[in-house]
Every structure is written in C-alpha cells, then in structure tokens.
C-alpha cells in the first residue's frame, strides 16, 4: 500500500492585479485573486477568494468559490461558497452558499440560490421565465 502524505501549506498563493492594469481576455486561476484593475473578459478561480477590489472592473462573468465584490462587475456572478457584495453588479447572481450584501451593494439583475453544481453554468433563459425571481435594481443598503 502506498501512503502519500500531504504537507501543510505554509504559503498563501494569491494573485494581485493592481490598479492601472488591464487584461483583455479570460482569466483562469487555481488560487485567490485580488483585482484592482480592469479585465475585459471572464474571471474564474477554482479555489480561494475572488476579490474584486474597490476601483476594479470586470466586463464579463466571474466565478469562484468565495466571491467578494467591492468594485463593479458587468456580468453574471457565480459563487459556490460565500458571496459578499458591497459594490455594483449588473447581471444575475447565482449562489449556493451564503450571501451578504454591504451598504454600498447595488445589484441590477436577478438573485437566485441554486445547487452547487448549477453555479458553474448560468441559465439566463430559465431564470427569466421564473415568476418568483426578484429583480434587485435598487441599491442594496446594509443587508447583513
């Protein structure tokens, strides 16, 4: 029997995209990301925190295990674990864990809690036909 041991991870692997930087295209990572720049495309992180900092802008869909939006996202948001919004989202939100809205939260889209597996692919048509879907177009105020 072969026994494999996993050593404890001592270093925190995080990508920082500072302000003043712009990326055109999709960004896929297997660790956390802090974005203060501009990304014209989708941002996907498999593990860690996907942080859209204040002043950051994503023109596309974002997807991550833990998502925190302090900036602006012009697209759908998929969060498998926890979701904190204290910024502006112009799109639909799919989450399967917990959601927290900050005092500066502004959501222009539909909010739906789905199964964990369904957070990977968006279903905009099905959501549009859902009668119970709420349109949160007003700015969220301190929803904690």
């Amino acid at each position: 029997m072969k026994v494999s041991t996993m050593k404890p991870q001592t270093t925190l692997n995080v990508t920082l995209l500072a302000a003043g930087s712009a990326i055109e295209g999709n960004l896929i990572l297997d660790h956390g990301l802090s974005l203060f720049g501009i990304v014209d495309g989708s941002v996907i992180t498999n593990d860690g925190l996907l942080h859209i900092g204040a002043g950051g802008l994503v023109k596309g869909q974002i997807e991550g295990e833990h998502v925190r939006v302090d900036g602006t996202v012009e697209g759908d948001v998929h969060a498998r674990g926890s979701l904190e919004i204290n910024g502006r989202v112009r799109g639909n939100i799919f989450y399967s864990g917990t959601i927290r809205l900050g005092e500066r939260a502004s959501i222009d889209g539909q909010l739906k809690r789905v199964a964990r597996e369904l957070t990977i692919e968006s279903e905009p048509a099905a959501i549009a036909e859902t009668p119970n879907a709420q349109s949160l177009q007003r700015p969220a105020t301190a929803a904690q």
Partner: protein
Amino acid sequence: MEIDLREIQALHARYAREPVVIDLENQIRAIPAPLLLSHEPTNRPTRLRRAWNARWQIGHLSLALIGGTVVCATLGMGAARLWPSPHNRAINNPPVPAAAPASPQSEAPVSASTPAAAAQALNSQALESSLRNAPGLAVVDPSVLIQDHGNPRVSGPAPVQPAATTDEQKAIASPIRQRAMTSASAAAVATAPIVADSTPRVAPVEPAARASAASQASAPQSQAHSTVRHLVHLHPASPMDGQPSTADAQKSAAAPAPRNGDVQLF
C-alpha cells in the same frame, strides 16, 4: 487608492482553506494493530509462518504415505478376497470323470500336477495311456488316486452326473453297469496283490487297470472308442476275478479279439 498588502493578505487568509494534514504513519502507530499487520517487512517470513510451512510440508508427505498405504491395503484385501474363490471352485467342482471321453482332445494338454488333472487320471483313458508308455501300474501315482477317491464329492455321484451324448455312453452310465462295476471292484479288492494300500477306495481302479492292460495288447485304436471298449470288457471280466492277476491279464488279452469284431460291426 493605496493598497494595503497586509489587509489583502489577511482577507485571503480568512477564506483560505484549512491545510489538511494526513499523517498516516502517526495515525497507524496510534491504532493498536494486530501482530500480522505489524510494520515489519512482509518479505521476511515470520517464525509462525515458517513453522506453519514446515508442518504443511510434513502434512503433505504424511498424507501421501497414508493414501498410498490405504490404496495398497485396499488392493491387498481385494486380491485376498478374489484369490480363494477360483481356488475353491477348482477344488469343489473338479471336472467330471465321465465327461472326459466326450472331449478327449481338449483334456490332453492338462498337466497331472493340478487337482483337476488328478481327477482326470482316474478314467480309463489316462490309465491306458500310462500303460502304453510304461508297462505296469507303477506309472500311476497312488497318492493321486487316494486323493481323488478320498474326495466324497467325486466318488459318489460322479458316474451319474455326466451327460451321455451317445447311446453307448448312456448305457455305460446306467445303474446296472455301475452295480456290475462295483461288484467287480469288490471282488478285485480281495485278490489284488499289487495295491499296497488297504483301503477299499483304491480297489475300483484295479480292474480297470487290468482291463486296460489287456487292451494294450490289441491294436491301437482311437481314444473315444478305447474308453468305451475298456468299460465294456470290464463287465465280462469281473467273474474271473478269483484267478491270479497274471492269468487274468493273459486271458483278458486274448479276449478282446472277438469283441473287437462285435464293436466294429456295431
């Protein structure tokens, strides 16, 4: 906007996964494992394993020996069971003497050492042949004759049992002839000087021997006819048993000539 790296690091640390440590060695050591699952290398056989292997080999050998012994014993018992049956059959059911003339050619190769051959030696044919080879009765083994007549199964119903194929044989096997033969043999017992044995069982053979000695002088004939003629001559010769044996032999030697003519006519 200034970015505080420490704050960002603290933020990511909040959502970072707890490091998963799988320390199997320590966990296995903590668990009380049995002796067979110890951490010793499995290539080296343990003492218990070695002892078990040795006993297993010894068990194999002993099992093979026991199996061989059982097979040999079974074969021996089977052979011991089968052996007496043909032996007893040969003793209990000897070939019938009267049936001998029916197939004289088939009995020729049988040796005289076996009990069956001893039973065959009593008929007239055998006596005739022995007399032809050597003059006198010394050729015939008296012990064989005693053995044969001592057997009650042969002496009693033997003349009656054979299946007579021809009319002559039926006539010979008739009770009248048997009575005549027994009377002749009784008379011969009183006068026979040759037989050393005092038992009356041997007596019936002597007249037959005498008659065969008489027929020895005649021309050689076929075996089937000789037996018949011998028994036919035996009957008229019985009243003359009171005379000495030498004169009797001469007389009987002269007698067969006219009889032969009768049989030939027949």
